[in-house]
């Protein structure tokens, strides 16, 4: 089970490089206080951290979606393949192969499931046949979507929408996928399935992943490398296997103490607010 992360073969070219970025919302709210990370080509990199740590903000800073939320990168740089992408249009970034699956699904409510998937292929110019083939591929990954292909996405269940969002991103044949909480709201076997899909895409197609996840357990199982973010700062990073063995990570993120996993019933009177930084 633990061998998914092969730390050795990801020491290749760095695809995405985030250098000491600072993000401010609304001109006053400082959210990221100098975050740096490297995403190697062909790897799965996990970005972990509690609520409000700034994972989503980091991903949006990379994909340049911050501007529409009145957020702004005020310091630092984001480089993709060595080029500064800070000023680029999000659409241009997608054309370069970076696509983001946003937190909270963001499906096109009034479009049907299939139309949603097809918009994913918007930037592609490699012909209808290829797109159709990829559509089949997505349906293979998510058979449930095939059943509901003609219904408006707004009327599908939460999990189905998550599948649509994932599938839509895959339709663009990306080189790098920024995945924001893919497991949220999915049934357990589906969570596993999604991570399996991520893994197989990563392995077979060489797609690079940067994954923001709360489900640390799963994330570290599939990722090669991990960063832990807290209150807008990276507090720890390392190969996934190492992180998994780190006692602090074990306790705070994996819910395991020395006696193994404890029941959720037993934590009641037990509070801890220990942090690396606070």
């Amino acid at each position, binding site marked *: 089970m633990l061998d998914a992360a092969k730390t050795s073969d990801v020491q290749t070219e760095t695809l995405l490089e985030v250098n000491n970025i600072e993000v401010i919302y609304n001109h006053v709210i400082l959210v990221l206080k100098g975050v740096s990370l490297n995403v190697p080509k062909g790897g799965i990199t996990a970005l972990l951290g509690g609520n409000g740590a700034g994972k989503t903000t980091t991903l949006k800073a990379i994909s340049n979606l911050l501007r529409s939320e009145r957020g702004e990168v005020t310091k630092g740089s984001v480089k993709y393949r060595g080029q500064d992408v800070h000023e680029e249009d999000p659409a241009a970034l997608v054309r370069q192969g970076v696509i983001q699956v946003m937190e*909270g699904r963001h499906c096109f409510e009034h479009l049907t499931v299939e139309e949603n998937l097809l918009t994913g292929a918007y930037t592609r110019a490699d012909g209808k046949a290829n797109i159709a083939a990829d559509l089949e591929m997505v349906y293979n990954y998510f058979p449930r979507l095939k059943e509901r292909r003609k219904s408006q996405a707004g009327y599908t269940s939460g999990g189905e929408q998550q599948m649509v969002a994932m599938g839509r991103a895959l339709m663009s044949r990306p080189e790098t996928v920024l995945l924001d909480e893919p497991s949220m709201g999915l049934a*357990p076997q589906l969570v*596993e399935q999604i991570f399996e899909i991520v893994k197989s895409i990563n392995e077979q197609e060489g797609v690079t992943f940067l994954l923001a996840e709360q489900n640390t357990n799963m994330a570290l199982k599939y990722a090669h490398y991990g960063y832990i973010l807290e209150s807008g700062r990276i507090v720890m990073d390392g190969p996934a296997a190492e992180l998994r063995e780190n006692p602090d990570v074990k306790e*705070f993120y994996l819910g395991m103490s020395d006696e193994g996993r404890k029941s959720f019933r037993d934590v*009641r009177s037990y509070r801890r607010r220990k942090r690396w930084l606070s």
Partner: protein
Amino acid sequence: MQDGYTTADGRKIGGVVMEMKNITLRFGGVVAIKDISFDIREGEIRAIIGPNGAGKSSMLNVISGFYVPQEGEVWFHGEPRPQMRPYEVAQQGIARTFQNIALFEGMSVLDNVMTGRLSYMKSGLFSQALWKGKAEAEEVANREVAEKIIDFLEIQHIRKTPVARLPYGLKKRVELARALAAEPKLLLLDEPMAGMNVEEKEDMSRFILDVNDEFGTTIALIEHDMGVVMDLSDRVVVMDYGKKIGDGTPDEVRNNQAVIDAYLGVSSD
């Protein structure tokens, strides 16, 4: 069965509070719920699980009166509930949280929690316009309750923050606070722990258990994290494609082959 039971950890569970009888709900061609019956007993934590699109959220919506089932009845406190608008249902003591957070984004956390107390605030328009007499007293009294809940959920520090700015996990907590503010008899939680890490889930679990314990609130819970479900709930309903495929204690459900096939998969622990 009517008289309740005692749980493994020794809590007394009372009689039936709410009973769903042969509920069927259709949307055009889609059958979201197909002839499902189950009950919820006083003081218990009742989980509803099932794969995505099984109809769990729809079931909660039926309970809240937002969806009107084509067939079947909802019994509340031992009698069939006449058809009601959702706000009337809420006033009967049923509060809930939502799967896709439904906070009032333009309001502060405190105001959101205070909306949970709307059914306790009865002062007239005139009194409110002048901010004198009943309106002011009522505001202060209810504010105290709201503050208690805010303390309880440990969100004092964000009391005055507009919720739109909060991270996902805190929003979920605020939503819980809003539901609790209504001091409900029956609390419906739709995936309260989605998007949280283990530590936060632990916190959330603790809150849920405490609510159940301290206020004796009956809770119906939808959750995909099996660890949470198995640990917290007293009884579990399993749905799949709108049908009920299992109902019983966590252990019974865990070992039910239909449930394993449809939902849990092999690797559940």
